[in-house]
């Protein structure tokens, strides 16, 4: 049972208790679509509440507690996730034990699914397969997100990280009620399962509930999946897609050789902050403010993979200008052109963002699971100190290890 970890983070100042269940699976082509469907099937019914309507009413009686199924890729770790939230017991009219009742439901959803003929209910599986295919197809709806995903997909072609967390149409089609149930039985017994509880709860009682539900179950040894960082291979890739859109979306991927475990990962985070993370950054002040090319122009670091992904929404004909300016801004960092203000702003932006995580249970779950995926086990204050200790020289040094990898452009049909 050491596969299941309960991590309780007391947060008395807020008025809710949040429970996050993270089931860690190695991201690979075989299982990606099963992981993308499974949590949604489980969410449709269990021993405690046999169907979706019963679950809805159960949650409504807990003052509208929420229970969301989902799946996310963090590095090469595909995480099946349940995020649940309830108000604290003391705000209930009669002080009902809301957190415990919510955990009871989650445990039943995870460990006591509804079955028929040695599989899940096939009607449920068919509906959730269709919904999964809708989610896959709908990626194109948000053009900004779509452009960044396409950039990553092209950049990491051939690597597991190119696999979308939502799965693939072919993969989903291959699922049936029986093979998904077989997969479920093996996955639930052989995965690291982290259960985060943020808020106010009686930890001993929660642990007892988990022990009671899992007593007699058999588990196999499990570990957190390992993530390889992305390494640039060969020439710069240039990819253009066409769609009926009015605004072009530019997304540029950069590779580095900096692993999340190395000390330089902190310098890379600050370097990205100088480059494109926020209104203090070079991309905002030059691509947007100076050249008026875009409403948004920013970059984000994918720490687990050692990558930086830039994105901007621009007129079709401004592709070259925006591309040139982005590269010019990277070059200016590499040449050490970082003002005291840019440096200070970049650091304090991050320190502020890390400190603010202490108020948000969702961000706390995210932070803690980030640490799990990268195996770093830092706490927030340690990260703040490390970020504050990064110097301009460190930024310049790591920026020289940032290499152009993939240039993606989503443009209009007629362009």
């Amino acid at each position, binding site marked *: 049972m050491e596969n299941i970890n309960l991590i309780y983070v007391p947060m008395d100042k807020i008025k809710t208790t949040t429970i996050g269940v993270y089931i860690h699976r190695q991201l690979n082509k075989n299982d990606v679509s099963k992981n993308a469907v499974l949590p*949604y099937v489980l969410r449709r019914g269990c021993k405690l509440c046999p169907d979706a309507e019963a679950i809805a009413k159960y949650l409504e009686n807990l003052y509208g507690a929420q229970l969301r199924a989902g799946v996310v890729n963090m590095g090469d770790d595909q995480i099946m996730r349940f995020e649940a939230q309830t108000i604290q017991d003391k705000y209930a009219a009669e002080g009902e034990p809301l957190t415990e009742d919510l955990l009871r439901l989650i445990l039943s959803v995870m460990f006591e699914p509804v079955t028929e003929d040695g599989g899940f209910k096939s009607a449920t599986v068919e509906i959730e397969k269709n919904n999964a295919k809708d989610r896959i197809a709908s990626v194109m709806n948000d053009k900004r997100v779509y452009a960044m995903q396409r950039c990553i997909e092209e950049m990491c072609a051939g690597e597991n990280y190119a696999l979308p967390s939502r799965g693939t149409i072919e993969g989903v089609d291959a699922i049936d009620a029986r093979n998904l149930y077989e997969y479920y039985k093996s996955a639930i017994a052989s995965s690291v399962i982290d259960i985060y509880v943020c808020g106010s709860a009686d930890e001993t009682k929660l642990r007892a509930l988990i022990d009671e539900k899992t007593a007699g179950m058999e588990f196999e040894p499990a570990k957190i999946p390992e993530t390889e960082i992305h390494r640039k291979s060969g020439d710069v890739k240039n990819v253009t897609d066409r769609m009926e859109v009015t605004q072009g979306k530019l997304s540029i991927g950069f590779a580095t050789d900096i692993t999340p475990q190395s000390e330089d990962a902190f310098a890379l985070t600050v370097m990205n902050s100088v480059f494109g993370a926020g209104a203090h950054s070079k991309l905002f002040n030059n691509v947007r403010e100076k050249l008026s090319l875009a409403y948004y122009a920013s970059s984000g670091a994918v720490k687990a993979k050692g990558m930086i992904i830039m994105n901007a929404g621009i007129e079709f004909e401004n592709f070259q200008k925006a591309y040139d300016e982005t590269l010019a801004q990277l070059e200016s960092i590499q040449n050490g052109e970082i003002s005291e203000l840019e440096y200070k702003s970049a650091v304090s932006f991050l320190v502020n963002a890390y400190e603010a995580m202490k108020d948000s249970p969702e961000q706390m779950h995210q932070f803690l699971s980030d640490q799990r995926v990268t195996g770093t086990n830092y706490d927030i204050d340690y990260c703040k100190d490390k970020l504050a200790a990064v110097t301009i020289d460190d930024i310049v040094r790591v920026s020289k290890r940032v290499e152009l990898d993939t240039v993606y452009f989503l443009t209009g049909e007629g362009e």
Partner: protein
Amino acid sequence: MELKYKKSAADGEEMFYGTHPSGLDIFIIPKKGYSKSYAIFGTHYGSVDSDFIVPGETEETRVPDGIAHYLEHKMFDQPDNSNVFDKFSRLGANANAFTSFNMTAYLFSATENVKESLAVLLDYVQSPYFTEETVEKERGIIGQEIRMYDDADSWKVFFNLLNCLYKNHPVKKEIAGTIESISHITPELLYRCYNTFYNLSNMAIVVAGDVEPGEILKVIEDGIKKNEPFKEEIKRIYPDEPNELASDYAEQKMSVAMPMFMVGFKDTDTECGGKALLKKSLETQILLKMLFGKSAPLYKQLYDDGLINASFSADHTMQPDYAFSSIEGQSKDPKRVYDMIIAEINRVRSEGLLEEDYVRIKKVLWGEHIRTLNDVENLAGDFLQMHFMGIDYFDYYDVYKSITFEDVQKRFENHFVPERSALSVVNPVE
């Protein structure tokens, strides 16, 4: 000035508040133990306010659509050429601004240097500086913002619905205006709007976080520049809006994977503010969950038939002079979903609502209320928005408690009228 104090026993929230001689309403909400503080300084002025009479004048002023939003962008330019974002960045604060139908707000969050950041916020929002050159520079940036919305399916399906529901009311117009309308914006027009709507008697500030109210008040008092409060109201001119719809159907083709839809019910019980408005809103939210929530019979039917997915949701938007409910989602057959919604409304109109559903759903609303108190940004933002509608958020519990099943039944009869519903669809391009 002295601040007053109140506390809500039901949810434990407390507040210090008062009106400064300049006319500015001040609200300070202490949140013990929080790392983050948040301040929002807003004016009761949004995209619907393009037609008005300045206090003391008799002539009507008519300005181009999108000007409130343009003004918001231009507030970041300062007379001494300094960059507002630089000042916040230096302090480690995260600054932003937004414009909605009825309000424009400037805000920051910070985990340190809160008082210094608050001084910056007060200073720049009271320092307008518009020149031909700076106004011109913004046209490219806002032009790209408008284009971004042109490609956003959820935005288009929403505004196409509003254009069905409203014949005349300016809520149907896009907040940023159009490339054409913003081409008429000049520094003179921006000053005219600023001098009208940014009078402190039309503004309010809310600060939430682990702060010392006395210290925060001092920063605000020191930061208030000379202001002559208006003695009379700004007269906002809205055209007459009939109960009838402009149209009951809209369709647009976009690059989307599957059709998106939004069904709207126009609310004709308007012209109320304060507690009455809050009560109406809570009743409507209860109804939306009873009719379209995850435990509703209609939801189960639509979901099991594969006509909706998890993106299905319902919402109510309210202001004193307009309001509507909206139900949205993705579907392979939006018209069928619409027909089933109308059939369900007709069924409930003849068979009635179930009291046991009402009792259960009312609990859900309390949970949602408690949740909004968690995050300083949501709390202060919601508080300010309600303040401009004449609602005191601290009245929530009393209003909530006063609602009865009969109120909700009556509200259902008045609001969910099939003739006042419309369907907006975004279909994929072939």
